[in-house]
């Protein structure tokens, strides 16, 4: 047996009068379903059912007065428990039997740490722009804070304590040109060998190679263009002006042989010698260092086989020749000792396609082998 007593319908009201029953004996009601309307000293209110179940008995009829906490309805007993007293006349409290497991709650600071980087957001941004890892920078500001000056000095290798040699002149220009190229160019390199077994040992191979370049540039002119990376424009060059990489004590110099297509081997040799000497004694005129549309690096004079070379804009390609050597090579169906020139062609893939690069290199090899 389960009896629902009249709850306090207001704030400390002693009784209430039944105005109208909404349910009768035998009805099955749901929780919160209105059971009856009651009039108190304050207002007329509907009384909701505290739980679901079947009604067994009503204590009173319309017009009867019921004392607060006196029996109102009897329900056929069910398992459902009585709605718990949660207080509150307004709203509904979320309720659970969940046991709160907070683990270890720490009063105040969990632990002292001071390995953190101290730097203002602007300094962090500067470090990001300069690609500086702030964990490596010593802070000189208040409380060990890293300042913008600290970051800049770190980048410069902290000049005050440096014992290094500052780059000057040609070497400085080289460093800058190489870095600029690296920032901009999208390089690709392909390598192959030219079989020069039939080339006379006492003949001028460099002049021969330069003529091969001139010939190949005619066949594949896309390799002999000037490229503007900002506007994404290329300009075909009518002449092939060849920059010749010359190693000097002061650094890399690249004097230029103009219009190589219209020069004989002898003329080329004379000019090569003149430029090499001029590079060594620094007697070259400015115009002799300008206007290259393609570069040749004969790095193999000393050692080396293949290399990735650095293209210097606005040029789009550079050819490197490694050390000429004899190799065991399959030739006409059998292994023979052959003489080869290992070649590497680096191009700026923004301006030159892979097809153009391979066609150019094939043309160079064909000319060298003929």
């Amino acid at each position, binding site marked *: 047996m389960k009896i629902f007593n009249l709850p306090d319908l207001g704030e400390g009201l002693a009784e209430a009068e039944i105005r109208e029953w909404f349910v009768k004996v035998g009805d099955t009601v749901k929780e919160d379903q209105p059971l009856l309307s009651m009039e108190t000293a304050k207002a007329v209110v509907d009384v909701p059912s505290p739980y679901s179940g079947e009604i067994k008995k009503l204590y009173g009829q319309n017009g009867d007065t019921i004392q607060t906490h006196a029996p109102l309805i009897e329900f056929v007993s069910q398992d459902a428990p009585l709605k718990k*007293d*949660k207080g509150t006349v*307004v*709203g509904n*409290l979320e309720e659970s*039997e969940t046991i709160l497991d907070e*683990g270890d709650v720490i*009063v*105040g600071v969990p632990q002292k740490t001071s390995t953190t980087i101290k730097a203002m957001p602007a300094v962090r941004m500067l470090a990001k722009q300069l690609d500086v890892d702030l964990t490596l920078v010593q802070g000189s500001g208040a409380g060990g804070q890293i300042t913008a000056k600290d970051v800049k000095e770190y980048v410069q290798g902290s000049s005050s304590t440096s014992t290094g040699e500052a780059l000057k002149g040609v070497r400085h220009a080289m460093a800058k040109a190489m870095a600029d190229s690296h920032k901009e160019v999208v390089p690709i390199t392909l390598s192959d060998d030219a079989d020069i077994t039939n080339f006379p040992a006492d003949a001028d191979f460099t002049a021969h190679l330069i003529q091969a370049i001139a010939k190949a540039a005619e066949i594949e002119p896309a390799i002999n263009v000037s490229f503007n990376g900002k506007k994404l424009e290329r300009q075909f060059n009518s002449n092939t002006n060849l920059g010749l990489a010359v190693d000097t004590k002061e650094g890399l110099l690249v004097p230029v042989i103009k219009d190589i297509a219209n020069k004989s081997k002898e003329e080329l040799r004379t000019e090569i010698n003149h430029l090499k000497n001029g590079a060594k004694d620094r007697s070259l005129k400015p115009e002799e260092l300008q206007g290259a549309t393609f570069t040749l690096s004969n790095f193999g004079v000393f050692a080396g086989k293949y290399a990735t070379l650095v293209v210097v804009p606005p040029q789009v390609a550079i050819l490197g020749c490694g050390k000429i050597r004899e190799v065991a090579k399959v030739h006409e169906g059998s292994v023979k000792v052959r003489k080869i020139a290992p070649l590497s062609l680096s191009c700026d893939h923004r301006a030159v396609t892979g097809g153009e690069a391979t066609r150019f290199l094939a043309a160079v090899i064909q000319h060298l082998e003929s």
Partner: protein
Amino acid sequence: MAEITLVEAINQALDYEMGKDENVVVLGEDIAKNGGVFRATVGLLEKYGKDRVRDTPLAESMIAGLAIGMATQGLRPVAEFQFMGFIYPALDQIINHASRLRNRTRGRITCPLVFRTPYGAGIHAPEHHSESTEAIFAHTPGLRVVIPSSPKRAYGLMLAAIRNNDPVVFLEPSRLYRFAKQEVPNDGKALPLDKCFTLKVGTDITLVSFGAMLKETLSAAKKLEAEGISCEVIDVATIKPLDMETILASVEKTGRLVIIHEAAKTCGIGAEISAEIAERGLMFLQAPVQRITGYDTIVPYSKLEKIYIPSEQKIIDTVLNTMEFA
């Protein structure tokens, strides 16, 4: 030992302190015979009698004034306001008198009292019953403002609030009243009134919250943990005075801060914490400080309540965005 709810922990603390100190009295609307709308004071009348457990008329300004009078004469009253939305008639008493009696009398008269009130949304109640205007009290010099978020802290902080000689506004998140249970030893041990509580230690980002929002904050932190983001979760607990040392130490470690509260954004406690970090912790920041708050509007009726209260998903999204800053 039985596990108890947050509202039962409040009751346990009141009971403990009334048993120990006869100067402690409780008063408020329906708090004696009825035991309070949420039953926070149930059983106290029977145990300590009507002199110490008093029902008051429905007049909040009077409740506050009465408590102030009692406090100045040596009692330690704990006054209940039925809902935070009903506290405003008492603001004159609270701000003009309770908060500044010590200053006005040059330290001769203190005002050791506690103003208790259920606060916050999430119980499907109409307006006035869903307020979280804690910033009004935090902004008032001379008041301490305390908000527990678990039964244990409700017990320990309530004891501290009663024993403290300053007026304390004690805001009880009604959404958490019966939400979960916890073992709370009735040992009379108070918790510090000026400290944050670090609920979860983490390394990637600091989540600062208080009151009922810790529920969403902790569950968000748990889900973020599964995604490999280690959150440090701090319960401010006492929003005035604010324990910036703990928050600063955490931000120094993580470099990232998200503040979560239910109250409206403008001039909320989140703004205060954010400003303190800008003043004292800027050099540690790896990402902008973010606030997740309620809207600058009256808390809507129950159907829209869920939209008003910041969601777990909103916290997760904000944390993920904050982690984008490398």
